[in-house]
C-alpha cells in the first residue's frame, strides 16, 4: 500500500510481543506442582516406553523356555539353585551323568560321566539352553567316557520377571506402554478433530442444521459400544487400526457436544458479531473466532480423554478384542497377570503400576490445565 510508506520504518521494526492467554496459562500451569511432576513423570514413562526396549537386551517377543514365570529380580539370572537342575537335564540328553558341578563366577565346570564315550557334538545342548554359552572340553579321560567341560554362563536380567511364555516382562510392559499411549493419543486426536469440527459447525450454524447434526450424534450414541466393536471385528478381523476407528468413532460424540455448547455461547459474543459485520465468511468465523476460543475446554477434555481411551483399549484387550499377539498392550498384560495372580503376582503388579502411573499423570495434568485455563480463577 502506497500510503503505508509514510510511516517511519523503525516503529515497524520491533513490535512488542504480547503475552497470549496460552502463555499466561502455561505460567499458571508451571506453578502447579502436581501437574509439573506429572508432566515430568509422564515424559519419563513415554521416553522409557519408546527407547527402553532397545536397552533391555530382550526383544519383546523373545521366548526363553528356561525362564518361564521367573519372578522379578534385580540380580542376574540364572540363579545358583537353577544351574544344577538344568545341567542335570542337559546331562540326560548328552547321556552323561554330571558330577562335581562347580560354579565359579561367570562359568561352570562340570564333569560328565557316561557309560559309553560321550559324543562331543551333543554338547551343543548347552548352547541351546538359555542359561549357558558354548561348552568347551577341558579334559577328556577314560576313552571319552569322562569329560570335564567348562561352560560359560549367560547372564540375563529380568527386572519385572517373565510371563507364562518366558518373555521379558519389562520389555513387554514398555511395548505395551507404547501401544497404549499411541492408541490413547491417536484415538484422542481423531476424536478431537472430528468432534471440534462437527461441534463448532453445528453450534455455529444453529437452527435446523444444528438439530439434524445433533440428532445424528444421538443416534450414534445409542449404539452399544461393545456390540459396535464386536461387529467391526466380525467384519474386518482383528486389526490395530480398527481400535482407532472404534474408539475414535465413539469418543468424538462427547467432544462434539462439548464444543457445540461452547460455540453456542461464543456465537453470542460481540467479537463474533463484529466479524459478521466485517463480512467474514462462516468458514472464517468458525476457524478464527469460534475454534480458538473453544480450545481451552478442548485441551482439558483431551487430557482426560487420553486415559479414558487407554482404559477402553485395555478393556477391549482384556476381553480379547484388542491387539494381537505377539504385540501387546497394558490391557492384555493385566489380563494375563490377573489369570496368573496366584504364584506370579509380578505379572499383574508391574503392568498395572505402569497403567496407574500413566492415568494419574494424565489426570493431574488435566486438572492443572483446567485450573490454568479457567478465566474465572483470575
Amino acid at each position, binding site marked *: 500500500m502506497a500510503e503505508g510508506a509514510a510511516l517511519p520504518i523503525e516503529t515497524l521494526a*520491533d513490535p512488542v510481543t504480547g503475552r497470549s492467554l496460552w502463555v499466561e496459562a502455561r*505460567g499458571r500451569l508451571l506453578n502447579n506442582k502436581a501437574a509439573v511432576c506429572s508432566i515430568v513423570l509422564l515424559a519419563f514413562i513415554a521416553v522409557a516406553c519408546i527407547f527402553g526396549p532397545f536397552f533391555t537386551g530382550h526383544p519383546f517377543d523373545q521366548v526363553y523356555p528356561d525362564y518361564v514365570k521367573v519372578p522379578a529380580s534385580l540380580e542376574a539370572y540364572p540363579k545358583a539353585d537353577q544351574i544344577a537342575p538344568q545341567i542335570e537335564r542337559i546331562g540326560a540328553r548328552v547321556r552323561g551323568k554330571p558330577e562335581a558341578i562347580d560354579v565359579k563366577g561367570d562359568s561352570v565346570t562340570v564333569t560328565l560321566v557316561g557309560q559309553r564315550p560321550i559324543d562331543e557334538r551333543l554338547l551343543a545342548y548347552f548352547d541351546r539352553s538359555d542359561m549357558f554359552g558354548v561348552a568347551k572340553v577341558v579334559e577328556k579321560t577314560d576313552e571319552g567316557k569322562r569329560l570335564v567341560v567348562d561352560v560359560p554362563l549367560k547372564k540375563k536380567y529380568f527386572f519385572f520377571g517373565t510371563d507364562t511364555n518366558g518373555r521379558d516382562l519389562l520389555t513387554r510392559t514398555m511395548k505395551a506402554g507404547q501401544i497404549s499411549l499411541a492408541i490413547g493419543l491417536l484415538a484422542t486426536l481423531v476424536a478431537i478433530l472430528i468432534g471440534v469440527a462437527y461441534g463448532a459447525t453445528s453450534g455455529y450454524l444453529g437452527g435446523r442444521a444444528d438439530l439434524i447434526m445433533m440428532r445424528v450424534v444421538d443416534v450414534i450414541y445409542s449404539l452399544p459400544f461393545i456390540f459396535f466393536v464386536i461387529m467391526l471385528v466380525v467384519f474386518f478381523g482383528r486389526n490395530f487400526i480398527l481400535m482407532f476407528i472404534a474408539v475414535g468413532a465413539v469418543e468424538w460424540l462427547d467432544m462434539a457436544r462439548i464444543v457445540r455448547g461452547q460455540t453456542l455461547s461464543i456465537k453470542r459474543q460481540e467479537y463474533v458479531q463484529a466479524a459478521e459485520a466485517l463480512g467474514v465468511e462462516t468458514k472464517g468465523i468458525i476457524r478464527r473466532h469460534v475454534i480458538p476460543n473453544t480450545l481451552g475446554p478442548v485441551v482439558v477434555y483431551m487430557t482426560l480423554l487420553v486415559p479414558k481411551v487407554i482404559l477402553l483399549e485395555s478393556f477391549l484387550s482384556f476381553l480379547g478384542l484388542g491387539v494381537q499377539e505377539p504385540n501387546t498392550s497394558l490391557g492384555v498384560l493385566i489380563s494375563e497377570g490377573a489369570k496368573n495372580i496366584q504364584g506370579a503376582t509380578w505379572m499383574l503388579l508391574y503392568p498395572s503400576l505402569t497403567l496407574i502411573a500413566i492415568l494419574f499423570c494424565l489426570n493431574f495434568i488435566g486438572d492443572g490445565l483446567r485450573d490454568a485455563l479457567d478465566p474465572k480463577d483470575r
Partner: protein
Amino acid sequence: MADPVLTVRNLNVRFRTGDGILHAVKGIDLDVNAGETVAIVGESGSGKSQTMMSVMGLLASNGWAEGSVKYRGEELVGLSPEKLNRYRGSKLTMIFQEPMTSLDPLYRIGEQLALPLTTHGGLSKVEARRRAIELLELVRIPDPQRRIDSYPHEMSGGQRQRVMIAMALANNPDVLIADEPTTALDVTVQARILELLADLQKRLGMSIVFITHDLGIVRRFADRTYVMKRGEVVESGTTEDIFAAPKHPYTRMLIDAEPTGHKEPAPTNAPLVLDARDVKVSFVLKSNLFGKPIHVLNAVDGVSLSVRGGETVGVVGESGSGKSTLGRAVLRLQPASGMVRFEDRNLMPLDRAGMRPLRRHLQLVFQDPFGSLSPRMTAGEIVTEGLLVHEPRISRKDRDRRAAQAFEEVRLEPAWRNRFPHEFSGGQRQRIAIARAMILHPKLVVLDEPTSALDRSVQKEIVDLLRDLQKAHGLAYVFISHDLAVVRALSDEIMVMKSGKVVERGPAEAIFERPQEDYTRDLIAAAFLKEREAQTALPAASLAS
C-alpha cells in the same frame, strides 16, 4: 464532627496474582460519621470498591487486608467470618452494582428478604413476612402484598435494585455501602433510585458510603467526598469544597471530564449515505402449535432514518427502546422489513453473500470493549481481519503495515499491535475496536454505545477521537447511546426512541433546549442531575419504576 461510625486507618489491600503481588489499596484513611453520606470517587482500578469489600470482609480469596477498620470502636480486620457476621448483614450492609445477578433466581423475593430477618433479627417466619412487606413499601414497590411472592426475573432492573436496598435495610443498618448502585440502570430509573436512597437516609438516619465514578451523583448526594487514584486517597473534604476548588489535578481532571464541545455542522449538500424508511423488526415471543405467531414484540416499529456523509444522527432511548436493534437492522445484521438504501443501492433484497462486498462501507462498533475483541487473537490480527475479507490479495507484511497505520490513527502505540486484548485497558480496547472499523475506510459507522462502559475521562478522549476521524474521512455516524452528555457532544440530529417508535426528532440543540415530549424531558433531566435541582421533585406516585 460527630463521632465516626466507621473509621479506616492505614488500610492496605493486596492481591496475590500470577504476576506477583498487586497492591490495590495503599494505606488509606477514611471516616464515616453517623447520618452522613460519604462518596468515594475514582476511575475503574482506583481501589474504591476493594476498600469497601475489605471493610465487609468480602475480598476475593487471593486478597488480604492489613491496617485497621473500626466499627464503633470494634476492630473488624482479622475477624473470623462468624464474628464478622455479627456486623455485616445487620449493622453494615452493602448493595451491589448488578441487580440482575445479586438476587438468587430460584427464590421468591419474599424468601430472600426474610433470610436476614430470621438469621440476624431473630424474627419468626410470619413476622419476617410482615416486615418484608413493610420494607417493600419503604422502597416504594407498588402492590407489595402481591409482589412479595414474585421471582426476581418477574421484576425490572430498577425494582430488583429496590429489593436489594430493602434487603440491606432489613435490620436497620448503621452504614449502608452502595457500590455503584445505579450504574447498570437506565438514566431515569437511576435518578429515582438515588432519590429513594436520599429519602431513606433522611428518614432512617443511617450513614451511606457511596462508591461511584459518576461525579453528577456525588455532587448531588454526598456530604463529603474522597477521591481515589491508584489505591490512594488524593483528595478529601466536603463535596462543596472539592467541586468549588479542586486541589489535586486528578480531581480537576475528573470534574472536567464531561464530554464537551459540539460537532461542527455537516455540509448540507453532502450526499445521502444511508436512507432507511419504515424499518420494522419484530420478534415472535410465542407461537401456536402450527408456528403461527400469537405474541409478537415490535422491537422497531416503523422507524425512518437518514444520514448524510459527515453527519451524525444520535439515537437516544432507554434499554429496550429498540435503538440497538435499529442499528443492526440498518446494517442488515438483523432481519427486518421496510426499505434500507445505502448510497444508491437497495440493501433489502441482498442476502448474506450479496451484502459481503458492501460490508466494508458499513461498520459497527460495540459497547463492550471486553466482549467485542476475540481474546485469542493479537490486536493487529483483530484490526486487519477485515482486510482478509475485502482486500485478500495484500501480503502479510502490508497488512502489518496497515495495522500499524490504523493504530496510529486511533492514537495507539503501533508497537503494541502484537499484544493481546487482555493486555489493554478498556479505553485502549475501544480504540482497537474503532481501528478495526476504520481500517476499511467505511462510509457509515454505527456506534452502539461505544462509550458507555468507559470511565468519564476516557469517554472524553474517545468522543474527541470519533469527532476527529469523522472530520478527516467525512464519515457518517449513527450514534446509539443512553448517555445524553455524549450524544450532545457528537450529534447533528437526535432521534428519541421509546418502545420501538421515534417519539421526537430534530437538530441536537433544539432537542436539548426545547424538548417537546415528557419522555425526552425526563431523559434530559435524569442525565444532567445537577441541573435538576432547580426543577420540582417528581411526584411520589411516579417514583416507582
